[in-house]
């Protein structure tokens, strides 16, 4: 459902492989076209609602999308030429190094956001330079919050430092809340907001330094206190990314609920659909099948060379994220009982299809990803191009009940696909091995 934004940014990023391609201008145009497709389709589909939806609402929806993309940076492509050129001049002083890091992130971290800014400025006259500046401030807050969530979840900070940083992180959250209320900005409370950002920035700086110390000392040998076995919980990068993603999703659903209670259901329908999709766990699994999980495949294949064993592994990994995602969505659906069934039907139909597709694409186009969440090598362009229209088609369900048939077709397609995959797995496994280990 809400995969338009997601897929144009996450999946189509196969286009944005600047490293491999020198014809950057063409790729920039393609990137912009992809974003225009997303924004244009969103705008087109919203024609029914635009009568009730003001320009301000539209801006808010896009802003929420941009901030969420910032927080979920690890899912998104990075544009690194700036970073590379800055490296030789990197100052040794800790505070300057930190300042450079932040600047570096703002400039380089999110190519998609940059393209979105330019697209909006070019297309929509109501989107002004002032709006763009406000967005940049929002992104700074989002960067700091994201770092806090990430570091705290990774537990890379010593216990006695934790409480101090927790206090400072609260300051960061207060800063974010101040910005969350536009009334503060309108009434001239910029000073308070800026102080909050400075405090949060200081906390962020201290946290980075503490992590540096901790990482240095922990090289002597890290012990694990886990006794049980869980693939997701044992892969720290995956655990952090998926937990972070769910925190963001839960927060957005909470904000949506509050707004819907105030202003009614219909106005928020599209945003609701955007954040009540199973895209998060799916993308998590889809993007990382062969990162930390490469050797899981190898181990399982040694013991049981059947497709079902790998399928069970993927389901086992997906089980927890999907369960959390479903619970979040169902709670949201129950609390906002006025919502039509379309969201829930589409949620489960797309969830089933996407799980099967993640299995299918990961075997058809296995890429060896060295890091847990490397976005430089991702899924194939073909997979992206096919998955994008499949997912965006589910948006049609909000136009007419007849389109519910799409959901039925998806479930049938998923069943057919999984049966065929298991049948032909034995022929595929050799090509998987050759791509992952040669």
């Amino acid at each position, binding site marked *: 459902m809400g995969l338009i934004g997601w897929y144009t940014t996450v999946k189509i990023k196969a286009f944005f492989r600047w490293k491999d391609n020198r014809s950057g201008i063409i790729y920039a145009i393609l990137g912009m076209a992809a974003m225009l497709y997303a924004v244009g389709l969103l705008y087109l589909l919203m024609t029914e609602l635009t009568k009730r939806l003001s320009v301000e609402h539209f801006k808010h929806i896009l802003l929420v999308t941009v901030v969420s993309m910032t927080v979920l940076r690890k899912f998104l492509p990075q544009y690194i030429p700036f970073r590379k050129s800055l490296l030789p001049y990197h100052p040794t002083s800790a505070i300057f190094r930190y300042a450079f890091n932040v600047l570096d992130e703002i400039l380089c971290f999110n190519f998609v956001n940059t393209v979105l800014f330019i697209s909006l400025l070019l297309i929509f006259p109501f989107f002004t330079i002032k709006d763009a500046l406000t967005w940049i401030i929002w992104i700074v807050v989002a960067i700091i919050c994201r770092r806090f969530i990430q570091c705290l979840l990774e537990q890379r900070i010593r216990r006695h430092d934790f409480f101090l940083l927790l206090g400072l992180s609260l300051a960061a959250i207060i800063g974010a809340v101040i910005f969350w209320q536009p009334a503060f900005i309108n009434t001239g409370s910029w000073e308070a907001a800026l102080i909050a950002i400075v405090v949060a920035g200081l906390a962020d700086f201290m946290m980075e330094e503490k992590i540096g110390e901790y990482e240095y000392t922990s*090289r002597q*040998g*890290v*012990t*694990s*206190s*886990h*006794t049980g*076995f869980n693939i997701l919980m*044992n*892969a*720290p990068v995956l655990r952090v990314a998926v937990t972070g993603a769910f925190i963001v999703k839960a927060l957005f659903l909470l904000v949506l609920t509050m707004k819907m209670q105030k202003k009614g259901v219909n106005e928020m329908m599209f945003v609701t659909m955007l954040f009540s999709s199973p895209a998060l766990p799916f993308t998590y699994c889809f993007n990382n099948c062969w990162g*930390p999980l*490469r*050797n*899981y495949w*190898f*181990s*399982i294949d*040694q*013991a*049981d*060379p*059947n497709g079902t064993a790998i399928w069970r592994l993927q389901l086992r990994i997906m089980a927890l994220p999907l369960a959390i995602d479903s619970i979040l969505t169902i709670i949201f659906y129950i609390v906002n009982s006025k919502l039509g069934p379309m969201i829930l039907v589409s949620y489960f139909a797309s969830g089933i299809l996407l799980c099967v597709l993640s299995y299918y694409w990961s075997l058809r186009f296995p890429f060896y990803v060295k890091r847990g969440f490397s976005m430089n090598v991702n899924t194939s362009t073909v997979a992206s191009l096919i998955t994008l229209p499949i997912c965006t088609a589910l948006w049609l369900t909000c136009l007419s009940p007849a389109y519910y048939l799409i959901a039925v077709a998806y479930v049938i397609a998923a069943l057919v696909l999984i049966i065929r995959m298991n049948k032909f797995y*034995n022929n595929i496994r*050799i090509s998987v*091995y*050759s791509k992952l*280990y040669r």
Partner: protein
Amino acid sequence: MHISVDSVTKKYGKITVLDQVSIDFRQGGCYCIIGVNGAGKSTLFNLLMQYIKAETGEILYDTHRFQVLPAAYKQRMGYLSEPLNILEELSVNQYLDFTGKLYGVAPALLQDRKERILQFLFEDQEEIGKKRIAVLSTGMKKKVAFAGAILHSPEFLLLDEPFSALDPVSAKKICNFLSGYLNEKRTIVFSSHNLEYLEAINPIIIILDDAKVKYNAPLAEFTSNHSQSISQSLMEKLKVNDSSTVMQWD
């Protein structure tokens, strides 16, 4: 388990890595594959595990020809790959539990074997068990991978370079383990460049050279000239220049 490699040819592009290779790995035998780098040792192991397909020839498992090796056969095999493909994000205990479960080892037996093998391979097995594999040294990782490969007591044990990166004490321990492990039902096939450990295991030596099997006979025959060391015999069999020649370098 008896595995027979019959006239197998494997090419990578235009390069022929194995050319009409035929080897019989008999039940109860211990085989050491020796060869220079790129001789095709790992390729042979991958063929036995069906990770790659041969261009021509066939591999028979207990006289059966399998397009895909059934899980029942895979469960009877243990494989130590090179490079190590272990799950570094897990602790040693978790990895061994995971591997044991994959092979259906009963929990009580798994716990017992895990403790015994860790005690045998490591000085402080309790501490090692809790450590994440990622923070261990290469040699320690090798020992953990070895423990994972033998945890289900496979009938056919394939070890690709089991002694590389190991200290002499650990290598000697693994030699002793293999000597004790071998019986009339079990087969061990390993590759090695560390020839000094071979005498303790007394394997059948198979030399791969120029994509072919150059030599296939017991160690006793390999060093029939008792004045020669194993490495001298190998140099002779491979017909290479005397490696002790000092090269002048300016």
